[in-house]
């Protein structure tokens, strides 16, 4: 039996895992509805809170603190990055647990497919679908409310694409914890909600206390959100934000390396205790 190796093997495996996910989606169509309405619901909630609780000066205060009067684009950018981050981190972390619950985790682990390919692949369908939906939502919103910034969208999406890499790293970290300790949503939901507070999803990080800003600086979403806003709302280019992009690139290297190292350790531990087949 002939086999393929190298990039052909990786692409073949990723494609198969991706299509398996798509087939599951089409056979559980309800989950599509959730993905389609989520970005609108979150943005509406925050937009409404600002408008109705902020009072008559809400818009002015918002502009003074954020440097832009375009509330919708400002909030939807934060919301989109936060939600994509949530999906990436949760899906990479929870994908293995889902397989474990189905009873198929061991079957995947028996195959000679690389673990990173498996980890990324198992969450790929959700990430691609969610990202595509968010890109469309963000794109359409900007085209309608801020047509002048339409051309800068491409640069903003480059930032988003680079920002996904460290998020996978955080996902690897969770995948290890989930494999070892089960109860996936305890880890992912607490931290994803915390990330919304720390990374400037709905307000500038600069308004946070100094010590909190220190924590924010270690999180990749902070740079993705800030840089996308600078590109779309302040007409800056990737060259103008090179310092912040450099930090994001460093995080894109550090998080996956650290996350995968922790995953391997916890996977080893799970293999010693025979956790793979346990529900």
């Amino acid at each position: 039996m002939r086999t393929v190796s190298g990039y052909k093997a990786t692409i073949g495996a990723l494609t198969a895992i991706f299509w398996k996910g798509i087939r599951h989606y089409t056979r559980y169509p309800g989950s599509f509805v959730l993905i389609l309405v989520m970005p609108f619901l979150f943005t509406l909630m925050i937009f409404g809170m600002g408008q109705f609780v902020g009072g008559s000066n809400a818009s002015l205060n918002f502009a003074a603190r954020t440097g832009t009067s375009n509330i919708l684009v400002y909030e939807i950018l934060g919301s989109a990055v936060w939600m994509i981050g949530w999906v990436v981190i949760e899906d990479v972390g929870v994908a293995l647990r889902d397989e474990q619950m189905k009873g198929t985790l061991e079957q995947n682990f028996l195959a000679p497919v690389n673990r990173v390919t498996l980890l990324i692949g198992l969450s790929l369908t959700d990430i691609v679908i969610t990202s595509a939906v968010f890109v469309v939502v963000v794109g359409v919103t900007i085209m309608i409310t801020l047509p002048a910034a339409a051309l800068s969208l491409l640069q903003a999406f480059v930032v988003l694409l680079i920002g996904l890499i460290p998020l996978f790293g955080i996902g690897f970290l969770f995948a290890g914890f989930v494999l070892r300790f089960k109860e996936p949503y305890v880890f992912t939901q607490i931290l994803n909600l915390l990330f919304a507070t720390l990374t400037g999803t709905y307000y500038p990080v600069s308004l946070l206390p100094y010590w909190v800003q220190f924590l924010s600086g270690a999180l990749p979403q902070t740079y993705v959100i800030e840089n996308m806003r600078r590109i779309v709302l302040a007409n800056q280019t990737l060259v103008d934000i090179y310092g912040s992009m450099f930090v994001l690139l460093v995080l894109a290297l550090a998080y996956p390396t650290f996350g995968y190292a922790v995953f391997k350790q916890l996977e080893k531990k799970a293999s010693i205790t025979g956790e793979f087949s346990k529900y």
Partner: protein
Amino acid sequence: MNAVEVQSLSKIFETKEGPLLRKVPKKVVAVDGISFSVPKGEIFGLLGPNGAGKTTTIKMLCTLITPTSGDAFINGNSLASDQQKVRESLGVMLTGERTLYWKLTGRENLEYFAALYHLDPLDARKRIDELLDLVGLKQHEHMLVENYSTGMRVRLSFAKAILNDAPVLLFDEPTASLDPQSSRLIRDTIRSLKKEGHAIILTTHNMEEADLLSDRVAIIDRGSIVALGSPSELKDKVKSSDVIEIEARNLSDRIVNALETFSEVSKIALATDPQSSEKGSLRIHAEKGKEVLPKVLEFLVRKQVSVTKVSFIEPTLEDVFISETGRSLRD
């Protein structure tokens, strides 16, 4: 070079038992320093009761569980240092129906795993066609697995295990919960795979299956191999005794303990009927069976045991197990 070389493989699980805050650490020895080898073209049976350590052994050999000590070499690759190569050399069928994706069709399942095993896409397509034909699922290839019967799912799992045509095949209870026809299909295929030169390790608690299929059998109990040899060699060991099987109602451990004290009885084991706790069968090994039988029957009648059938039988692998452990395989 043997296709499989197992060297002093052990697995001790460390667990904690007891109520919260008062949990006590406990060590469970699942596999206790077993060694064996399997050459190419041999079917090697691991026979033992539930909980004997068969599945843990298989899971260690296929890299799903890390051994506590010892090592094994699959196609020359060490479990301890080259897991990736070990996985490439293996085809594995684990027990359980949920080893497949129920929301995928039979063909989609095989296509998915073919990609994870890095099979060339063109070869994979041909191989999947062949295998679906082989396991009699060609007509149902586009049906979701959730609509398959148990037998169909097991046959698909079997096809998945041999998909990559690996030199070493591990089958964990491959015919458990199968109808006789499907069992025969799988057994025949296992024999053909052996002829093709695959080294096959098969776990089972079904002694007939171990006897029918295996070139050599390791009888495993409480994590240790208690006997190893070809089925006929193993059975020869107990041929010096007569084997009496007594089927009866109201048998109990107390009766067995009392019968054990009979000087003519060398070994005795009780197996209860899984369908009815009242029914059971005694298997008695005695050098002079015809002399001891009247005494045993008299004792049983006195103890108000209602005997339904008595027979002298040819020793089976079950008798080897009884002879080595003093217990029945169905204990």
